[in-house]
């Protein structure tokens, strides 16, 4: 156990020291991947630990990012109209945009808006005992609704172009490499803190109830717990993490558009977790970093056919490593320890989500 924790610390310290050994370009990439890792962490909490597969986390990520981007856009406009509103024929800043001129409000909203939406949606669906595949597909319908709305309300959201071309954040120039390094370090710290929080949650009593919900929701109900409130809580938490990731993403990448909330990114988010290991928080983080690095690497080396490699990666992981890379390492270790008592544990986890 201690060895494991030491490993975590080394991992996060290594990330923290990134600016020492990575070029500016690679550091920016890693920073982006760590934002994705934060989303993956949230998905791992609801999928791996609670058994809810959301194919709509792109929406929460996007809402968080848009909240912060609205602030950045207003700051870039310097009191005037944001550029896209000008060419969309809007004459005054819409009322709901105004509070976002305040950075504290914008950052708070980037956490609360996704969390509230998730709470409302979660409350309705979980209360109606919609689960499994139904929930996953409903979450996709939510994605379609939001993406179409964001694209269609161009005068309020920037349409397909999204919000981009920011200048400063709290007065610091976003173009400055120092600010980017600071944002990277903040991302690492937030990711580390969120990881610790998530780890504490999964080990707490509430966390065990969540696992119990995953393994037998009705039994939990019969024992006198209300699974709905536990599920709504963890679903909102996961949405808030995605919103936070959106904020960090928009600050580092300088861009948010409806394309990033869509069906494809939402499914990709789940795939990161699947590749890393759905039952392991650190696995989710590693999965996000590994899949995105692989994507960058393949597409740089083989721009014409890279998506074939990515497709193969997903198939291989699902077929041969049902618990992801971390799961594979763990079961390998276990089988080495108890080479005579074969298996069992990994199979039990397989049937977890159905």
């Amino acid at each position: 156990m201690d060895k494991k924790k030491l490993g975590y610390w080394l991992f996060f310290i290594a990330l923290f020291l990134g600016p020492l050994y990575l070029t500016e370009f690679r550091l920016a990439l890693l920073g982006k991947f760590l934002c994705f890792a934060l989303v993956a962490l949230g998905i791992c909490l609801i999928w791996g630990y609670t058994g809810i597969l959301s194919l709509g986390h792109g929406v929460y990520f996007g809402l968080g990012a848009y909240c912060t981007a609205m602030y950045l856009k207003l700051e870039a406009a310097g009191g005037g109209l944001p550029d896209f509103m000008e060419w969309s024929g809007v004459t005054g800043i819409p009322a709901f945009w105004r509070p976002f001129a305040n950075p504290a409000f914008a950052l708070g909203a980037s956490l609360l808006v996704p969390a509230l939406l998730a709470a409302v949606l979660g409350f309705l669906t979980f209360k109606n005992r919609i689960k499994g595949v139904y929930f996953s597909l409903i979450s996709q319908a939510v994605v379609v609704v939001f993406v179409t709305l964001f694209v269609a309300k161009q005068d309020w959201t920037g349409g397909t172009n999204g919000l981009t071309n920011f200048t400063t954040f709290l007065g610091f120039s976003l173009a400055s490499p120092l600010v980017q390094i600071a944002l990277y370090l903040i991302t690492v710290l937030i990711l580390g803190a969120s990881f610790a929080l998530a780890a504490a949650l999964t080990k707490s009593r509430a966390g065990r109830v969540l696992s119990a919900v995953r393994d037998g929701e009705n039994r939990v109900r019969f024992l006198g717990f209300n699974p709905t409130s536990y599920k709504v809580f963890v679903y909102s938490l996961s949405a808030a993490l995605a919103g936070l990731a959106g904020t960090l993403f928009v600050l580092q990448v300088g861009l948010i558009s409806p394309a990033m909330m869509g069906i494809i990114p939402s499914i990709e988010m789940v795939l990161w977790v699947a590749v890393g290991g759905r039952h392991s928080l650190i696995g989710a983080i590693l999965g996000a970093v590994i899949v995105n690095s692989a994507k960058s690497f393949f597409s740089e080396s083989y721009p014409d056919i890279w998506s074939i490699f990515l497709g193969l990666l997903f198939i291989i992981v699902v077929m041969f490593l049902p618990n992801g890379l971390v799961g594979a390492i763990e079961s390998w270790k276990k089988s080495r320890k108890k080479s005579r008592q074969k298996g069992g544990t990994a199979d039990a986890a397989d049937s977890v989500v159905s």
Partner: protein
Amino acid sequence: MTGIKKFWGRQTIIAAVSAAALALSGCAASSALNEGEEKPAADTGGDTVKVGVLHSLSGTMAISEVSLRDAELMAIEEINADGGVLGKQIEPIVEDGASDWPTFAEKAKKLLQKDEAAAVFGGWTSASRKAMLPVFEQNNGLLWYPVQYEGMESSPNIFYTGATTNQQIVPSVTWLLENKGKSFFLIGSDYVFPRTANKEIKAQLEAEGGTLAGEEYTPLGHTDYSTLISKIKEKKPEVIYNTLNGDSNVAFFKQLKDAGITADDITVLSVSIAEEEIRGIGTDILTGHYAAWNYFQTTDTPENEKFVASYKEAYGDDRVTGDPIEAAYNAVYLWAAAVEKAGSFEVDAVKAAAGGIEFKAPGGTVTIDGDNQHTYKTARIGEIQADGQFKEVWNSGEPVKPDPYLETYPWAEGLN
């Protein structure tokens, strides 16, 4: 499993370690910053100069963008065979934007920072350009954007070799009003280009005596146009001005014909349908409709004859050229000419030298406007023939000065 408490127990030691780490990385950051300032903007050592070619090779936009990559690579090969630029061979680095705007930003950053590309040729959608724009401005790179677009932009780090609105849309609306009818129905995909273009068209219609019969937008990738067509039938316009994008055009034209509406009943003028798209829709469906561009494969110049022949030789007899393909091809030559004039690959020097650079393009001479970094281009309108090619029915006679903000048109006041 006493986990949590132990976990936090080591906090103090770790905090100290992290503080040290923070200090260390801070130092590293400032040294990286200093390095960054000394770094040359483009890697021009050795016998080659690197340029980026950044288009969507996968995803929904690949249907259009792959051909632009082909045209750019062909131009680079031709220039290299001719001795290169400033005696150096051009080395293209191809990247896939994957129809995903942050990927465009990421790859642009990679091309500028890691490969130190002297110039990047790339983009198609406005969204991809808007995503790349801050990257090029922050890194002082050079982007050559080869597609007609909605105007209202003029970045110091972008050269626009496609048409802006006053070289394509504005003259075509005037031509339609004079030749085809006063009552317009505007249809477009639901994104920035159609909405902005239609706003300008509405202002122009009002100023030049046209009427608006209707205005409809469909989501990108929409494929059922039966309801939209019933609306059109009800409004009975004389002209449909079409700014649909990509695949939607196929569905729209097929279903328009099925509903019994031919080119004789209502004229459709499109601004996103070039020769390649015609082949994907089917010529039998499009015959008699119109498109506005700056170049057609049938444009009659000696340069075009050579261009079409070498494009077909390089990529197969069944391939066709088209306006964006030509603009992408021109972009490489214009950049090379500007570099030769500047005597350097340095971005600022190239920009300073670019104004007034001329190139005898397949579609007629193009000239860079030094003020807004767009190009002078000849506006053309063509009628689609049964063989999938255009018959030019009108052209502006001489290259039109680019005016991305429509400053010279009184009716456009208040649009920006």
